[in-house]
């Protein structure tokens, strides 16, 4: 059996292939160790770097290759970081990877949802957004607004709009963008990003698909 693992900070994405049958799953990274899997190839912050380790941006580029070759930017927005890659005329052209602050990414949104007891599906698009160049300042604004009577789901939605705008600015204001990672399932985020550019959500398994493609 072939096993491809993208072990993120919070969630681990797994692709298993047996007799040409593909199966995908997402598990909490905290449970990965217990499974005692031997990956064919692996990527992500939470995996031990061995010979079968592959760089995350390289896995992203391979997983999103057909879109990149169509001049889309591929952006992976994870629990703790954000990274993107761009091709032009079918050749790698540019990339970036935020490497310091993780206060405006997936893990923060998950914490906010838990803290205010809000479901992700209840978030709605708001025209307004918080400026969250610093996520910590963004959190402060949520707390201020909620204590002044704003519904938590609206405040978190404004925070998410801020993340979407940041993602757009971080990728240097592209016309079209492919999204990889858990935020693909966040309708509010996708709708917010559509305010700025054309968006194609690719799902959570782009990196494991990329690992598979590299093995071929």
């Amino acid at each position, binding site marked *: 059996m072939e096993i491809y693992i993208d072990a993120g900070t919070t969630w681990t994405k797994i692709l298993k292939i047996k007799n040409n049958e593909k199966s995908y799953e997402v598990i909490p990274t905290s449970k990965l160790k217990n499974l005692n899997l031997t990956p064919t190839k692996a990527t992500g912050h939470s995996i031990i770097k061995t010979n079968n380790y592959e760089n*995350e941006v390289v896995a992203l580029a391979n997983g999103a290759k057909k879109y990149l070759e169509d001049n889309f930017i591929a952006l992976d927005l994870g629990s703790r970081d954000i990274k993107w*890659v761009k091709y032009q005329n079918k050749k*790698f*052209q540019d*990339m970036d990877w935020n490497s310091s602050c993780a206060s405006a990414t997936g893990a923060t949104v998950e914490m906010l949802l838990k803290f205010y007891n809000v479901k992700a599906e209840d978030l709605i698009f708001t025209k307004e957004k918080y400026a969250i160049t610093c996520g910590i300042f963004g959190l402060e604004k949520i707390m201020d607004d909620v204590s002044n009577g704003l519904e938590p789901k609206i405040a978190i939605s404004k925070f998410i709009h801020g993340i979407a705008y940041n993602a757009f600015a971080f990728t240097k204001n592209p016309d079209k963008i492919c999204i990889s990672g858990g935020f693909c399932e966040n309708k509010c985020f996708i709708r917010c990003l559509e305010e700025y550019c054309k968006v194609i959500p690719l799902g959570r398994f782009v990196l494991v698909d990329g690992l598979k493609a590299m093995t071929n």
Partner: protein
Amino acid sequence: MTKNIIAFWGYPEKELIKKTKIEYPKAQWVDLDININAPDLKFLPENYCIIIKNMYNNALFLKDKIIKILAPIGKDKCDSAYFASEILKEAGFEVIQTTFEQQCKNLNEINIPISKSSLPLKEKIELITKNIIEQKDYSHLKPTKPKFGFWGVPPNDLSILELFPNETEVFGWCRAVEAGYPGDFQIETFADKNIPTIFFTQAFCSKTQLAKYLANKYDGLFIDVDCNANNSIKAKIEAFLKLR
């Protein structure tokens, strides 16, 4: 305690090095730019260039052994080094301020065998800085066809250099130092459009301005690192090297 160290940072003027070697033939030379794991004495603000922090921490840690500090303060180093030279004077060091701003008259004639060699990148950078004092001839080193370029100063965290292949050519201040013109703007800002280059700078260093500008100009990758490179920075370098 007997003082036996001639300390310096940057690239002190050649004649001054020569004169000091004659005056103190048995002295040990210590490059204060380099991280020697001296205790952080918090002499500077928390967010400040790590190389300048190294200069202070190393100097104060070795104070009882330092005879004098040869202190470049010109365009060959930076304003922060000028301020440091004055402050360290007040702290009781003998400081000889130097400027080494001579410009190269013929860029085609610069001699940079280490920068162009096939040695591992880390070894190249270490050799270039060591040769500031040793002044050995490395013209026997054979040039290699470069696959990548590294632009910048010697990083505080040298481990990032281990990510590059041996076929990496050295640009930036390191190249200017090897050429013997540490203050030559043209040598320092030279890069090759055909060589995918990583433009490295220490965070809070004024060379950040150059690195960012040149990375855009030459379609390279801009990297700034504070003390040590974290996993994301290393992964970013790895990705650039693999995808280019």
